[in-house]
């Protein structure tokens, strides 16, 4: 975590007043600014400047959003899985890994919801169907639901360590399950000879400005993810610290009660 505070060092004197008011640092402020610029550029390029596709027409514009968010959602879930493994690997590691896992999963779920929404709209425009039962789409939906379940497990209560251990195990079990779901759906749909209508988004070829816009979308959403993860992870750290303080205070009260009686 020290790497991300490095940017704060040059303004620590003023930051000690400013930084105290929230989860921001000089680094995250620059990151946030870059994110805004990138997202703004994406809106302009995606909606207006970039050309419509020869085959797809205007609906290709949705793909910038859809592909951008699904990429980040996958990154987020991979980060959750890796952080969970990191937490379990050496139990003496700090709860930071657990909080990164949790924050990343929250962000992933939001991105995934946008992905599924945008994907449904795109599918409706391109192929007339909001939904299709192919391996990739179905597995993506399963991933979404599975991580909602993961977030529910994080809220089960108990100590922070219990939460960390439990949810880390659930995350790793999810990693186990996803390929199984993907494979079984793939096998299932191939029986129905629907495989050919499956991989729809890969039917689109993008080049020139369109490819650039797609790359911009990936970059912009990745910056958004990073900014968000830093802030959310810090919020979770403060929340845990407050819990601990609350517990400390309660214990202290019990002790003074014991002394008095």
């Amino acid at each position, binding site marked *: *975590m020290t790497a*991300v*505070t490095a940017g*704060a060092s040059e303004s*620590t004197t003023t*930051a*000690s007043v400013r*930084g*105290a*008011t*929230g*989860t*921001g*640092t000089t680094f995250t402020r620059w990151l946030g600014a870059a994110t805004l610029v990138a*997202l703004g550029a994406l*809106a302009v390029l*995606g*909606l207006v400047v970039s050309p419509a596709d020869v085959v797809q*027409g*205007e*609906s290709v*514009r*949705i793909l910038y*959003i*859809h592909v*951008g*968010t699904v990429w980040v959602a996958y990154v987020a879930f991979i980060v959750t899985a890796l952080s969970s493994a990191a937490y379990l690997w050496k139990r003496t590691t700090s709860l930071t890994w657990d909080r990164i896992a949790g924050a990343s999963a929250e*962000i992933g779920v*939001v991105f995934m*919801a*946008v992905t599924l*929404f*945008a994907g449904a*709209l*795109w599918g*409706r*425009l391109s192929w007339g169907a909001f939904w299709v039962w192919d391996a990739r789409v179905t597995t993506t939906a399963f991933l979404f639901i599975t991580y909602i379940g993961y977030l529910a497990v994080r809220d089960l209560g108990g100590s922070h360590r219990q939460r960390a251990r439990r949810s880390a195990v659930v995350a790793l079990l999810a990693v186990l399950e996803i390929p199984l779901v993907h494979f079984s759906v793939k096998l299932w749909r191939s029986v129905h000879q629907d495989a050919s209508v499956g991989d729809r988004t890969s039917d689109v070829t993008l080049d020139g400005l369109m490819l650039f816009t797609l790359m911009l979308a990936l970059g912009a959403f990745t910056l*958004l993810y990073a*900014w*968000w993860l830093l*802030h*959310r992870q*810090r*919020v979770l*750290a*403060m*929340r845990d*610290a*407050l819990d601990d*303080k609350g517990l400390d205070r309660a214990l202290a009260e019990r002790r003074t009660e014991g002394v008095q009686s």
Partner: protein
Amino acid sequence: MEDQGFILASYVAAFGAAALMAWRVARRGRELARQLPEEDKPWT
């Protein structure tokens, strides 16, 4: 017409979710930071 509506909807959903979540995390950060002393905030 349906095309444009859907395209716009997807952008609104993405940017709207981003804005909403950003606002929420920043606000929560400020709320919590008010209640904690400096040593609990190693990033500052």
